[in-house]
Structure formats: C-alpha cells, structure tokens
C-alpha cells in the first residue's frame, strides 16, 4: 500500500472533481455519501499504510514525478511515508470520514449541500498533500490549499456579511503567516541548497546557529498563522461563522494542527536552534493561558470551543518548545478526537434547538438529547485531562516534560491553564445540559439529532476514551514514543525526553495536574450548580478584569485600529494620487487637445472666400520667403 500511498489523497480529490462538476445539476444529495465513501476508503488506505510502517518499513519515499528541475533547484512531487506522516494520515482521514458522515445529516436542509461536499473533500486532499510531502515546497502547496479551503468553507454562507468578513480575516491572517513560511523556504534553499526534508536535515551542521534561528522563526511565523497562536490568533474564533462540521474538522482536528506538524517535522532544525525553540515554547504557553482566560466568559458555545482550541494548540507548541515533540504529536492526535467530538456535539445541540448558540438560553438539555450529552461529557472530561481519558495522557506528558526538562515557569503556566480549562468546560457543559431550562420555548422544541449525526459522535467518543491509553501507556514508554522515536532522533541529537524513565516524578507531576483539574471542575460545579459563589456576583466583583476578558483583550480592536486603519489610509492616499495626479494629468492632456482644437476650428468658418483669402496670404508668404532668399536677407 505504501507504494500506492498517492491513492489516499487522490480519492478525496476525485470526490471534489466529481461533486464540483456534476454535483449541483445531477448528483444533488448524493454528493454527501459520495464524498464520505471516498474518505472512508482513504481511511482504510491510511490504516494499511500505518500497519505497513508499523511492520517495519520505517521510511519510504514514493515519488510521483519531477516537478521542478532548474539548475540546482530540484523539487519532486513525492511522499515521505514514515511514522510521523502515517500517524497524521490516520488521524486526518479517520476524523475527516466521521465529519463527512455527520455533515450529511447536519447540512441536510442547506441549499448549498453539493457545494459543501465539493469544498470539504478538496480540503482533505490539500491537508493530505501537506502531510505527505517530502519537501517544503510541496508542503506549502498543501498549506496554501488548506488556507484556501478554509476561506471557502468559513464563508460558506457568504450571503451574510459576518461569514464573508470572517473568511477574509482568516485568509489575510493566514497570509501573514504564509509570508513567514515562504521566507523560511527560500532561506532553507539558499543555505542548504535544497528544500527536501531529508537532504536538509542531514546537513543541519552546515548552517550557523544564527541563520538556523532565523529560518526556524520564519517557519514558526507560518505555524503561528496557521495554528492561531499569538499574535495571529484572532481569526479562529471568528471562523466559527462557518458550519459546525467545518469548525470541527478544519479548526480543531486538522488544518490548525498543520503548524504543529510543520514544527514537529522540522525538529532537527529547531533542535539546533535553541533560542527559536524557547520562543516557540513561550508563545505556546502564553497563548494557552491567554485563550483559556477568554474562554471563561464566552456565552456562545462554539466560541468557547474555539478559544479552547487555541489554548490546546498552545499546549502543543509548548511541548515542542520544551523538547518533547512526541508529546506534541500525541496531544495533537488525542485533541483531534475529543475536540472534534466537542464541536460536533455542539453542532448537534445547535441543530437540536433549532439554531440557537447562546448558552444562556439553554439548560437542562441532557434529558432531551441523551446521546449528545453523554458523548460530550466524555469529551469534556478528556479536555479537562481526567484519567483515564485520552486528554489526560497527552496533556500530562506535556506538562510533565516542561518540568523535567527544566522549565518550571512553563510548567506552572500549564498546570494553571489546566485548571482554567477544566473550569470553563464544566461551565459550558453545565449551562447547556444541566439546571433549569432558561428558555421554555427552546426547551420544548429541543430534540435529539438523527442517527447519522449521533453515530459519528459515539465513534469519536470511543476514540476520546481509548486513544490515550492505546498510544501513550505507559508514560514516556508507550507505543507512540517508540513509534515516533526514529523520526525525532537525528544524526546524533538525542531528544531530551529520552532519558531513563523514572516513574516516581512522573506520578507526582501527574497527581498535581489531576488535582488542578479537579479543582477547576469543583469550582465550576460550585459556581454553576450551587451558585456558590454566584457567577454574576463574581463577574461584578471582578469588574475591570471581567470587562477585559469579555472584550477578548480588545485584540481585534487593536488590530483594526493599528493595521486595518493604516492600510485603509494608505489605500485612500494612493487612490487620491491616482485620481488627482495621474487622472489629472491625463485629463489635462485631454483639455489641452480640446482647447487647442477649439482655437483652431475658428479658422473653419465655412465661408469659402475666407479660404481663398488664406491661399492668397500663403502666396504672400511664399513670395516673401523667396524674395528673402533671393536677396540674401534670409541666410543659406
């Protein structure tokens, strides 16, 4: 199967083409099952590839064809199949498949159904290209492709203003990151003479540390844009304007993880550029706590999940920064499952209450939507890192690695953010499913979602529960660690996490994290179930702090004022220049011509006698000239 690995992205590409060309007119509702089946087959293929890699084919390059060959610049369309890419392959295809199935039910009544199932498989194709690429340039193709599909899908309901603006914002902020990626790519080529991963990683020693730091920071800028890290994070909450399946797939499980994948893949580069890694870790940690604080006070259920995603992505970068790339990928995998589940569950709730997203109007829904409730409860527990659910294993490893590798401040931030995470997820779940219904009308009409939506929820729930144990047990020595080890070990650099595993400190750290999580849950329950203390009272007491959080630190307003207004002013200036100077010049030339013509046409009196007169005058002139020449008055 590895030799036919290109089939895996080819199937969703085919689904895109078929649905795109024939969907609207002929296929109609069949576009959904068609795309889902393509993804299902891809998932099967990914599984086969995974098993083969597991079975011993550690690293293979499958080349399709030579794309660019100009002098020294050689880039192939080729796939690098190794443990890292096979894990990503599996995660992407399985979650995509489940989301496709779910979306068939969710988007049932939407008149843009065929268009949805044209863009969604295209996205998966681009993501798979990104993951499979064996060089930075091909990866960038997929990188841009997912950016484009994100734009198309966020702005899916473009007839409304908010989705259109959100899509634009997402794309523009992504673009800023892409600029960083491009600089990184070009610098890589200039320094190493190639963009191919293996060729670059084998010759890391060529470059000085300063240059490597610059390259890594450039790539990290790209990762920050794509994965919504500070300061390029604000597009992700706005992206919730898109349909919920899109939020689940793109903005939880796959596209936003591309940045993490990029840094993980470039581990050899980053390991040799210490300051860059430090920045990665710091930004990750800062983003994690920043987003978690905002999630505390949001009322839209999807926004809570969006900020949660930003926060969890911060955790992944934190892991990369402290030298635990395996933990980052582990968390990426577990997060894909439980965050996708949380989003799809939110979508189920929204679907069940007829479109309402404000949690203040919900309440007591667990009696009306049991399947949704129990699966979301499980996912929420995973997010809060409760053992033995998936999130516990992966997040704990991150936080533990921070401490073990000598970053106590980052460890503290991670633990505190964990408490915050537990709090806000408890708050969200309680407000939605427990307590008294706050809107009677809403409650009465609420209903559980159809099977086509709830079955994927259950499937993801199984993943959220079991994946952690399956991959990560025992800690530091589990399956995933051994699996990914060869990838992160490069030519003599041993990843710091590969010291002898001591369970004592690990258990102690784990206990601290679990306690923090329980504290968060406890406070949440106390405030929302028993109103001790009452949330509104807390909000009033917090006063200024609360206002800051509710306004999301005014980041959007800042950007709007500083950058957008500046850009608009500049545009206005150039427009004025164009209108007045350039057009003015052209207009004036026109006036000159018209003016001259007005003057000259006075000679056209229409009276023939005048014309004869001018002939006589010309004769006089000729005579004068001749006379002048003859008598020598005029020289020559």
């Amino acid at each position, binding site marked *: 199967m590895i030799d036919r690995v290109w089939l895996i992205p080819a199937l969703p590409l085919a689904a895109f083409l078929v649905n795109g060309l024939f969907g609207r007119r002929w296929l109609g509702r069949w576009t959904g099952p068609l795309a889902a089946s393509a993804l299902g087959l891809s998932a099967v293929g990914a599984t086969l590839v995974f098993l083969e890699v597991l079975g011993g084919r550690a690293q293979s390059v499958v080349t399709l064809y030579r794309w660019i060959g100009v002098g020294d610049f050689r880039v192939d369309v080729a796939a690098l199949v190794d443990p890292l890419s096979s894990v990503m392959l599996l995660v992407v295809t399985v979650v995509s498949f489940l989301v496709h199935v779910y979306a068939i039910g969710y988007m049932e009544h939407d008149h843009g159904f065929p268009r949805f199932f044209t863009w969604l498989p295209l996205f998966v194709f681009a993501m798979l290209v990104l993951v499979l690429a064996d060089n930075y340039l091909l990866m960038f193709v997929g990188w841009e492709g997912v950016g484009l599909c994100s734009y198309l899908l966020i702005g899916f309901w473009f007839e409304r203003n908010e989705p259109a603006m959100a899509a634009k914002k997402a794309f523009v902020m992504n673009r800023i990151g892409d600029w960083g990626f491009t600089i990184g790519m070009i610098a890589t080529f200039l320094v190493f003479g190639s963009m191919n991963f293996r060729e670059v990683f084998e010759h890391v020693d060529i470059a000085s540390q300063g240059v490597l730091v610059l390259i890594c920071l450039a790539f990290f800028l790209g990762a920050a844009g794509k994965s919504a890290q500070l300061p390029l994070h604000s597009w992700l909450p706005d992206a919730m304007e898109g349909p919920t399946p899109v939020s689940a797939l793109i903005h939880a499980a796959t596209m936003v993880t591309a940045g993490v994948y990029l840094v993980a893949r470039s581990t050899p580069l980053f390991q040799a550029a210490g300051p860059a890694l430090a920045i990665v870790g710091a930004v990750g940690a800062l983003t994690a706590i920043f987003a978690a604080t905002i999630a505390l006070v949001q009322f839209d259920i999807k926004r809570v999940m969006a900020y949660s995603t930003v926060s969890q992505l911060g955790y992944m970068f934190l892991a990369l920064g402290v030298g635990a790339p395996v933990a980052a990928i582990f968390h990426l995998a577990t997060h894909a499952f439980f965050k996708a589940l949380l989003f799809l569950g939110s979508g189920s709730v929204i679907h069940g209450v007829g479109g309402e997203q404000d949690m203040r109007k919900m309440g007591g829904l667990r009696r009306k939507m049991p399947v949704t409730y129990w699966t979301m409860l499980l996912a929420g527990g995973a997010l809060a890192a409760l053992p033995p659910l998936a999130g516990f294993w992966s997040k704990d490893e991150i936080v533990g690695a921070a401490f073990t590798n000598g970053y106590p401040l980052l460890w503290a931030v991670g633990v505190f953010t964990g408490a915050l995470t537990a709090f806000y997820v408890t708050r969200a779940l309680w407000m939605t499913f427990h307590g008294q219904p706050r809107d009677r009308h809403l409650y009465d009409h609420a209903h559980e979602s159809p099977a086509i939506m709830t079955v994927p929820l259950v499937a993801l729930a199984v993943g959220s529960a079991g994946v952690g144990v399956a991959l990560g047990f025992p800690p530091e020595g589990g399956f995933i660690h051994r699996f990914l080890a060869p990838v992160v070990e490069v030519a003599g650099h041993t990843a710091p996490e590969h010291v002898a595993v001591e369970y004592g400190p690990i258990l102690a750290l784990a206990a601290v994290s679990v306690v923090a999580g329980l504290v968060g849950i406890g406070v949440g329950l106390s405030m929302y179930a028993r109103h001790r203390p009452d949330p509104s009272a807390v909000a009033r007491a917090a006063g200024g702090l609360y206002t800051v959080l509710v306004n999301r630190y005014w980041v959007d307003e800042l950007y709007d004022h500083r950058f957008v207004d500046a850009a608009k002013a500049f545009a206005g200036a150039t427009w004025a220049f164009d209108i007045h100077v350039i057009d003015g010049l052209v207009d004036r030339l026109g006036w000159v011509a018209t003016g001259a013509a007005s003057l000259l*046409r006075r000679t*056209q*009196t*229409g*009276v*023939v*006698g005048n014309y*004869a*007169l001018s002939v*006589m005058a010309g004769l006089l002139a000729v005579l004068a000239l001749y006379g002048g020449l003859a008598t020598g008055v005029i020289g020559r």
Partner: protein
Amino acid sequence: MTAVPLPAFIAVSTLLFFIGAAGVLMKRNAVVILMCVELMLNAANLALVAFSRRYGSVDERGSVFVVFVFVIAAAEVAVGLAIVLSAYRNRPTVDVDELHQLKG
C-alpha cells in the same frame, strides 16, 4: 514687327491676373467670382503666349499648353456653374457669405 517689348505684355497679364484675384476675394455673387476666375485664366494664357512667341521654340510648345488651359477652363466653368446651380436650388442664394453650412 519690332514690337512691343515683352515686359509690357507680362505687365498687362499681371495686372489682369491680380484684378481677377481681387474680384475672387471681394465679390459676393458666386457667378461673378467664376467670371473673375476666367479673367485670371486669361491672364495666364496671355503670359504663356507672350513668352512662347518671344522665347519659344519651333514646335509651339507654349501654345500647346495654352490649348490645354482652354480645355481646363471650359471644364471648370461647366462644373462650377453646375455647383452654383445646385446650391441655388438648395437655398435661393448665391451669396458666398451666406453659404457657410460647413462651418466648424
């Protein structure tokens, strides 16, 4: 005959020519203008014949030219009068000062 000196003939021709030119530029009636043009042509003929007979060669080339001038003049009068008549049919005037529809 020892004759009238050549410059005399040319002077007469010149005078007639410029009288005709003045008429063309000053008179209002289109037919009168045509008449003045004929005067100018005659002046030219006179000058041609004078030079031809005084300086001219055996094969009378100057006179040949004069014959052609006759032809041209005749054709021109015919067509010119046709035009004047057409204009007169349009508006019953031959006053050139009033025929300025091609203004501008």
